[in-house]
């Protein structure tokens, strides 16, 4: 294999993990592979209840109105013996807009529920390509509205409600925050954008660097965006809510936390989003972990880089929620 494009090297510990994963994950996900990838993933919720029980967390599933009033599901997660009112975290899961369910990234949520005594609401937004834009981001926004409206009943302090999501979920969280600003929706105390997928235009340096290498490469990313936007991908006919990197006005948004790896497709769009937030006078914290591939904190949680990434993220949430 010849490599002509220069890219930052992977961190050695993460590269070692890549050698183990290489026979498990296809390098590039093509549109034809979407059904197969969904099949290969564990069925929705499998193993979830065991993990929740072990962590002393209770789950309540609620059917709520999604985009256009269609029914969608959310799960409310909190510590079993929780009482009173506390911080709330509204969660939008990852999966490239095309796969995954509301329990993807559960490990992350368990820590937040336990350490911060937070109530988590995680939303089962509908997936592309069956439900293209605006379904995913509008479902996410509908879930946020429901959460804010039911804050008292859920035990959430409305002044301490943040939104969080990883990967495609990070992009959806950013898009949801933009809608909330523009439509005078629920006030958010912060947005946690974990290696967010923000830009459909496929024009950054990092997307050319991570092509046929690493995790969630350029080809996979095009597959995800094409599923979401169809022929509109890369054209002028894409809303800022679908692809927040296109937003020219980021003023009035809640404080943001953004992180990513230096060896992933999303690096440049994530760094650019942080810069644009600062330019608009919004507070933002940005971490670019050297040699990190996409999602390394979840796939290689034992590595020193993954542990540092999580610690930095948790520290920001702690400060933002005033814990």
């Amino acid at each position, binding site marked *: 294999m010849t490599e002509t494009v220069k890219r930052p090297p992977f*961190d*050695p*510990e993460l*590269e*070692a*993990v890549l*050698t*183990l*994963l290489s026979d*498990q*994950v296809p390098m590039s*996900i093509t549109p034809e592979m979407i059904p197969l*990838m969904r099949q*290969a*993933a*564990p069925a929705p919720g499998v193993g979830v209840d065991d993990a929740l029980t072990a962590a002393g967390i209770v789950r309540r599933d609620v059917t709520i109105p999604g985009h256009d009033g269609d029914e969608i599901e959310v799960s409310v997660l909190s510590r079993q013996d929780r009482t009173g009112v506390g911080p709330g975290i509204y969660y939008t899961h*990852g*999966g*490239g807009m095309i*796969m*995954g369910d509301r329990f*993807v*990234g559960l*490990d992350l949520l368990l820590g937040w529920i336990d350490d911060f005594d937070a109530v988590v609401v995680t939303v089962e937004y509908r997936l592309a390509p069956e439900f293209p834009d605006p379904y995913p981001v509008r479902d996410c926004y509908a879930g946020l509205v429901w959460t804010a409206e039911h804050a008292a009943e859920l035990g959430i302090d409305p002044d301490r409600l943040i939104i969080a999501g990883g*990967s495609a979920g990070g992009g959806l969280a950013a898009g949801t925050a933009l809608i909330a600003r523009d439509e005078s929706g629920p006030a958010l105390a912060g947005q946690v954008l974990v290696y967010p997928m923000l830009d459909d235009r496929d024009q950054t340096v990092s997307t050319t660097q991570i092509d046929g290498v690493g*995790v*969630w490469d350029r080809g*996979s990313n095009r597959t995800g965006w094409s599923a979401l936007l169809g022929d509109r991908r890369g054209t002028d006919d894409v809303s800022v809510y679908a692809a927040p990197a296109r937003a020219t006005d980021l003023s009035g948004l809640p404080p943001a936390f953004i992180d990513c790896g230096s060896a992933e497709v999303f690096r440049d769009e994530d760094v650019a989003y942080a810069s644009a937030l600062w330019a608009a006078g919004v507070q933002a914290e940005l971490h670019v972990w050297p040699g990190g591939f*996409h*999602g390394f904190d*979840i*796939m*290689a*949680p*034992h*590595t*020193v880089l*993954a*542990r540092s990434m999580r610690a930095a993220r948790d520290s920001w949430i702690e400060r933002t929620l005033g814990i």
Partner: protein
Amino acid sequence: MQELVGRLTALDPEASETLKVVAYFDVLVGGGVGLQALLRGAALLSGTVAGAVVAGRTHRAGPDGARREAPADGGADPHEGWPSRPVDGGRVWIEREGRPHANDDMVVERLALAVDLVRARHDGEPAGSLGVVLDATREVAERRTALARLRLDPAREYRVAALPASRGEAGARSAGRSGVAGAPGAPSTVVATPYGLVRAVVLGRAGSEAEVFGPAGIGVARPGDQLPESFRTALLALRLRPRRDSGRGDQGLGNNTGLGNAGHDDAVFDAADLGVTLAAVSALEPVAAQQPDVVALARLDARTRAVLDELAAAESVRAAATVLGMHHSTLQVRHDHLTTELGYDPRSLPGRARFLLARLLLRLVEDGSAG
């Protein structure tokens, strides 16, 4: 993508996953990590706590990557029954309770090796300089500066030996314990290659074979500032060396054709002995797997290859029959049959050349690893 594979977990306790273990530690050592990362790796792969005592200090890491305190009793020694190995000035182990897993021994072996390599590197050995000297991508000026640090003469000729890095349990540090005798000061380092970790040792120009114990490959002699070429040919020789598991006939190839001076897996294979064949093998390696003569040999079982080796090497079919313990008329029939199957007679002059080259290329194709 995390939605599909979830998080990385321990290896299958029942199935042997040797290659994964080797690859994992090779990448770590090649990337220049420290002791803690090695312990995290061993803990992850085994699914239990991994520990080390080095220089009187105890280090432990769990499969979640978190450091664990040293045991309260101050015990610097692993429990009896835990898989464990000595390292230079200490020990490493994994804290396996109950039934051992299939990969435990391999994990501890590679951990021990990696700990020695990493610590040797951190102890100020001139290994970094030697790495530069052997690296073809470095400028000549840069290599000359490194040569000076190693007190090697850029104009004098040297030969580089390549040894599997796994050689020498606890002995990565001094040349004397890495399988090189008579050259206590010989500069030595471990290099990450596409075929795994390899120990490189710089030898004098002549009589070097006697200084190295196999398995090893010895490169062609080159002036100090052209040692990347010597290392390249040493690596090739290491991969071309006869292997015990590829049939006893390899001994015949090694001994009788003068292409090596020992027949077992501990062979020292000298690139200089290959002469023009070395250049041919180098040039053909990228297309070796598609060569019909190589493909034909690859299809044969070990015993048939052994018969061919002997037929090609021996003075007569009768002599080959004696070595193989076969009746000579039986071997004669076999010889005729093999000649038909291969499309050439491995005992004719051109047939021997074809067979020899195909046989060497097959070794590169079949076993890419140097260790």
